[in-house]
């Protein structure tokens, strides 16, 4: 489940490989062709982001000319300033930190509790309830937005952050993710021992479950933050440019709120920057988390 477990098959000592095994794809050393093709994939992955920064450092007029700019200009900070002020990205970033931060903490805690129950506790209907949990991942968000919008209007909650926080306080994905981890990572004897010692349920959770779950909680936290930061449909319905999240502000930019393309690119760059930094710092853990979820899923 952890990244080190996942890379284990690759890390086997070379001596154990016979010549025949060389035919196995996973143990072959990559040749130059592999590196070239991977390089092309990497270029396609990164070029649009690099070009966003280039475009954000130019002027609107320059961006309408052929050939398009291929190197940085001198307007990056001016455009970022404009995006910050005109498109409300300052407020938007703060709001997104509040929204994504709250959702992340809450999802991680509640998913761990539910995941623990499904993984280690015996109770009636647990199998059916787990299936139901997985099944809910199939429901598109479109099925909920009309009533949510009506209730929100009745409550006078338009433009308030709790409308986008409350619906995602805990997710089916998180619950399932934690369940899959805890099934293996948490020895049942440990819970039994704690119970024999007379520990209450909450004490078991605090002193046994949370410590065992910590690596997976960190990964789930990262994945949830990315998801919450980038969530789009419900936020653009529930919020307006008066009190936007980052995605709402970017939506306003895209629909003509500020017509300057260089400023729009500066906004796109600013709105993505926090996640790019997170990927730079925790990329390995995020990759490990996605791969771990895949194996068991």
């Amino acid at each position, binding site marked *: 489940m952890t990244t080190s477990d996942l890379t284990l098959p690759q890390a086997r000592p070379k001596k154990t490989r016979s010549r025949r095994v060389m035919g196995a*794809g996973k143990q072959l050393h990559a040749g130059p062709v592999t590196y070239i093709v991977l390089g092309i994939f990497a270029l396609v992955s990164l070029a649009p982001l690099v070009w966003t920064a280039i475009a954000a450092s130019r002027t609107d007029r320059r961006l309408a000319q052929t050939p398009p700019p291929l190197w940085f200009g001198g307007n990056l900070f001016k455009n970022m300033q404009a995006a910050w002020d005109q498109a409300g990205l300052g407020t938007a970033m703060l709001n997104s930190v509040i929204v994504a931060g709250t959702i992340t903490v809450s999802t991680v805690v509640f998913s761990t509790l539910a995941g623990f*129950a499904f993984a280690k506790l015996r109770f009636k209907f647990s199998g059916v309830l787990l299936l139901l949990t997985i099944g*809910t991942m199939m429901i598109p968000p479109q099925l909920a937005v009309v009533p949510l919008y009506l209730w929100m209007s009745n409550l006078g909650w338009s433009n308030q952050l709790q409308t986008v926080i409350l619906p995602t306080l805990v997710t*089916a994905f998180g619950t399932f993710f934690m369940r899959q981890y805890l099934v293996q990572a948490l020895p049942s004897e440990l819970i039994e021992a704690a119970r024999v010692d007379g520990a209450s349920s909450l004490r078991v959770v605090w002193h046994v479950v949370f410590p065992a779950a910590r690596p997976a909680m960190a990964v789930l936290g990262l994945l949830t933050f990315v998801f919450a930061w980038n969530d789009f449909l419900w936020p653009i319905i529930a919020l307006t440019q008066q009190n936007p999240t980052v995605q709402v502000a970017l939506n306003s930019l895209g629909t003509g709120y500020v017509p300057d393309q260089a400023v*729009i690119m500066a906004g796109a760059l600013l709105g993505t920057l926090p996640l790019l930094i997170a990927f730079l710092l925790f990329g390995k853990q995020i990759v490990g988390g996605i791969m771990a979820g895949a194996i068991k899923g």
Partner: protein
Amino acid sequence: MKASPYAFIAPFFIIFGAFSLVPLLYTAWYSLHNVQLSSLDTQTWAGLDNYKNLLSSDFFWNALKNTFTIGLISTVPQLMAAIGLAHLLNYRLRGSTVWRVVMLTPYATSVAAATLVFTLLYSWDGGMINWLLHFVGIDPINWRESDWGSQFAVSSIVIWRWTGYNALIYLAAMQAIPTDLYESAAIDGANRWEQFRHVTIPQLRPTILFTVVVSTIGATQLFGEPLLFGGVSGSKGGSEHQYQTLGLYMYDQGWIIGNLGKASAIAWSMFLILMIIAVINLLFTRRLRKSQ
């Protein structure tokens, strides 16, 4: 201690009930009513009118067709590229973690940010893509107005954002394939391509099915990319509605035109389509299991 399992799972089911299940049922209820954005408090019974209205609307069928087309041209190449990429990432690489993180960076980019950038890259005048195409002798393409061009452009955003993510999922599955399967294939004289076809692909089958299902669910609700690709009048999905998807059509009917009853009917149509796909998938999986 007996009650605690239920206490632990309660938060999830309360949140799911309040913000997904109850709204889902209410959406069905509203789809049978006339609900206007301008007068939210007056809701009159409409029977199946909203659905009849949809079935006789060219825009609905157009949106359904576009959702299907864009879903197909965004999912199939994406998953094929992801398998190829996963195969490459599965080699012994220098800096294997760096390669994986690089392939995943598009996933860090939100739908909105990615679409804003791609819209500029695809612009007719001075856009990067048309400029690059002129080197191979292709005349500028009007990516926003042309039928297939705009659908291709919207699909390419989806492909860019998700290929790396799916590659990691395939990579995880590839690493779980037992080595002796390759060994015995090699003994039988299978070359690398034959090993890929006859060992890797069959072993990946459950994972491929899983990614197809997830991608299909994603494609059915495609919304942000076409909305922002269209710019100021994005909810129409282009001047001829050429890339208006079901998700976009719902948003347009509900919040631009202001007919929330009809929007609810569109939402439920999406749900029904997904359930049909789920049943087909279930039958397909059963047949697959039997044949093995």
